[in-house]
């Protein structure tokens, strides 16, 4: 399991990475934390002829709040993000989701942007982005553009990044204070890819009505899926049991999972229903019990 040969280039900043990508074209791949790409190379299932290492860059490593949003640089290590106070208070779904994403030693090295650009439909960070309607900022030779999360992820391991574009950062809307969040994940073992994961954020107003409901599921379609129908059914309601159960059924109706060795499509459909209901209920509890 030794990787095939490749040429190694190290980029000093995002602009240089874009220049190198443009120079080498399709044969080049960006190397960030390597937690997804390098295993594929060791299996010789991925064989880029050039790797452009962006670990030496400085301009993509940042976490900051900005006009109601949290902005996270693509080269931010997942473990740093998980433990960052600014990020945790603005988007508590992030640390909750990261706790399920591999193990600490993966997150020590793995990057925020790397997970997004890898676009595994079962991965946690893409699901968070989709759940919260995040936006991704990408840079190409002719400048930057912004892509909504739901348009960024196209298929398993496929994004809307052009061959010569690099993911710079992502923006996530800051959740209202007190928003209850919950990650319900069914994985075979702690840290494994999800068979099904559901991310939920819920906020009840002072009358006990939901003024914010965000739900997305991972592992159940070719990309993480925002569960719009379920959200619509629940928004503005008091989130009573019957409503939650109905929304969970609607959620299951809106995804198209496939079989793999860990679960059939029908099992996944059923789990969407179970986990959506659980996630909403737990998110409500989370808001009610309060959190910092």
């Amino acid at each position, binding site marked *: *399991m*030794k990787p*095939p*040969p490749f040429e190694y280039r190290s980029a000093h900043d995002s602009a240089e990475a874009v220049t190198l990508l443009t120079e080498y074209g399709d044969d080049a791949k960006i190397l960030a934390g390597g937690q997804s790409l390098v295993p594929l190379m060791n*299996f*010789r299932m991925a064989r880029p002829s050039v790797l452009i290492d962006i670990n030496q860059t400085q301009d993509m490593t940042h976490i900051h709040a900005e006009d109601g949003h949290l902005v996270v640089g693509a080269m931010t290590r997942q473990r740093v993000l998980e433990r960052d106070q600014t990020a945790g208070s603005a988007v508590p779904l992030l640390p909750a989701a990261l706790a399920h994403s591999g193990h600490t030693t993966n997150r020590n090295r793995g990057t925020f942007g790397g997970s997004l650009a890898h676009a595994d439909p079962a991965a946690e960070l893409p699901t968070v982005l989709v759940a919260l309607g995040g936006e991704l900022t990408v840079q190409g030779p002719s400048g930057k553009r912004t892509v909504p999360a739901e348009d960024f992820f196209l298929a398993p391991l496929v994004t809307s990044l052009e061959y010569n574009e690099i993911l710079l950062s992502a923006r996530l809307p800051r959740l209202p204070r007190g928003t209850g969040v919950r990650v319900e994940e*069914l994985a*075979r*073992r*702690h*840290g*494994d*890819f999800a*068979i099904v994961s559901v991310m939920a954020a819920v906020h009840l107003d002072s009358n006990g009505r939901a003024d914010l409901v965000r739900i997305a599921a991972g592992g159940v379609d070719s990309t993480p899926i925002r569960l719009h129908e379920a959200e619509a059914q629940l928004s503005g309601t008091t989130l009573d049991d019957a409503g939650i159960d109905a929304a969970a059924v609607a959620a299951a109706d809106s995804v198209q999972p496939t079989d793999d*060795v*860990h*679960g*059939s499509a029908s*099992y996944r459909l*059923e*789990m969407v229903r*179970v986990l959506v209901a659980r996630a909403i209920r737990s998110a409500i509890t989370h808001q009610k019990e309060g959190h910092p």
Partner: protein
Amino acid sequence: MTTTEPQSTKYAGKPQPGIDDPSLLTGSSTYMDDITVPRMIEGAVLRSPVAHARITRIDVSKARELPGVFDVITGNDLVEIAGEQPVIWYPIPEQRIARAHALATDTVRWVGQGVAAVAAVDRYVAEDALELIEVDYEPLPVVADLEQALAPDAPKLYEDWPDNVSGSMTLTAGDADAAFAEADVVVGASFRHHPGYGCPIETRGCISNWDVFSGRLDVWLGTQSPNLARELFAQVLSLPVSKIRVRTPEIGGGFGLKFDFYPEGVIAAILSRRSKRPVKLLEDRQESFVASSRSRDMRHDFEMALRSDGTILGLRGTAYGVLGGALGTVGAGPPWASVLTSMGPYKIPNQELTLKAVMTNRSPYGSYRGWGVPKGNIVHERLIELAARKLGMSRIELRRMNFPAPDEFPYFSGAAFTFDSGRYADCLDLATSAVEERGWNELQREGREAGRSIGIGYGFHIEPGAYGPSRVLNMVGLDHSGFDEVYVRMDSAGKVTVLSGQISTGQGTHTTYAQLVAEGLGVPIEDVTVVTGDTESCPYTGYGTGGSRAATLGGAAIVNATGRLKAKILRIGAELLEADPEDLELDNGRVSVRGAADSSVSTADIGYSAYRMLNGRLPESETPTLEEVDVFDPANMTTSYACTALLVEVDRQTGAVKLLDCLQAHDAGVIINPLLADGQLAGGLAQAFGGGLFEEFVYDDDGQIRTASFMDYLIPSATDIPPFHFYHQETPAPHIPGGMKGLGEAGTIAGVSVVGSAIDDALSDLGVTVCEFPMTPPRLLELIRAAQSGEATT
């Protein structure tokens, strides 16, 4: 916790930490891949991507041209030098034995079968070269699983066979048909254990150096059975045994998987002979799923007959061993052992037990800790719980009433094994009272009230160990022996070296041997060195380190040799002290007159007298040197046993099972080292929980394995395994000096069926019966749904 009186020992029975641990903890020990020998190059094997095909063309010319490549061989090159891979177990009379060469010659019969191999300057280049080898395959119909193999119109793996059945046999005791006819209650089910493997974290590997000029083959091999490997190298390569040296480095886990004799050793030898360089050939993780022994893969269709009072009358059924495209080293051995142990610890007068060994287009079946017995255990433990339910009896009491009583031992089980000794009911009580003590019953009550599905599982197992009396093993079909030989040597400085043919794979062989010698002689444990792993200097062991032999047989030989050596030391001491040997004692490295401590000599004085200054010091009647050799061939095997209990919680909506706590009341005779013993039990149970819930080779219809990575083959991590609590009772093996019984396989035998028992209990209101392992969340959810909708589940 132990139920026997504490003995006044210094080392034996004490929790001595592993004597090799400091080097393991500092990265200074040497495992297979850590070894580099001069002029060494590295190999890699090209493996078949298809499960069944004829090879119509192989072109290695491009691979040969790659800079850094020394040699490329195919099956046709290999057969010029090597014979077929050996099989040592022939338990089924008149079995058809399908052997294969280390590299396929014309037909491939499983995904991963070797078709060519490369030797290159390093592994990176060797893998590059594999990509340049061109092979054309003409597909043949694939027999992907057992059911396909048995179908009337099944394609055949071997054209000249009537079907895909390699062999079958039936063992009988009493009259099973009559017993079933007169029974009040019959319970039965089809049990399926899906394939998995031993999966040591260190994969297999070797370095072969075949020097054609001296005619010597020098091998470093990550094996549990160096003596056997040497014999088999000699057999396959037509070399004299005396020209072959097998050394084992530190072994990163074996679990039976490293007992078997694999093609790579032969391939590396051939590459070495041709390239005139030592060749390292390491299996990588991805290869391991198709190149290391596949195990566990069996189906058991069994039923049990009982009287309404709970007396078991009979057991009958057919076990199907899902063999691969060719036989592995141990042939149908493990499936056979599953049948031999399917009556478990219970008195069952009437038995009719059939084994069918069936070929499929899967990788060869081979050894894994437990060696068939975990599935024998599934049969008797699942059936007895089904019977208890049907009879409305306590599952504990039903077990108890069918045990042989302590005075019925030695007890013949009806099939092959005679159980040496046991207090089964005491062991059961020890477990049930521990369950009560730990508050599980209370937890379950409270949990259920809160709507949680908490279950307590029980399992009772027997573990045949000390494999085995050589002549009996030969009689039942083993082309090898079972004795163990040991040298115990005190040197001129009075320090002790033990040489053994057993090896250490982390189970603590070195530590327990040092304890036995230190205890037996009366020397500090620091004075004892244990040497293993070199056929040139270490003695012969039949079989190898497998079959729970190390502590029992090696230990017995050490007890014997040490006893004789001590007597000689005392005789020399008597000369030096001008005393009677009878009046002397040996303690802490000093020989002294009992009751007169100032009159003493050290073992260094004894050593000096036996090796250097003989005159006036060594009695005339004594031969110089201090060495004893013992060969121990047991009169019978040992049978240890345990009652295991497991606390679980089931999520009825997802089918997920959480293991909360586990305890085991165990009897392995005399325990040499409780710290290490508990480690063996815990490690084995964790592996069984892997097999019970997580680990599976999943194949598709084309015979492709879909779980060939650690992302998909799920060995349990720390969050999946519960804490463990062990309780010991000690019923010595009467025929083993030292009284030890085996315990290395206890956990793997006990841990699968108990998962089923616990899940059933958690879902007792639904009447679910777990018969399939691993019980994955989707499978369990299906059982739950079926039970909820009123369908029968068995």
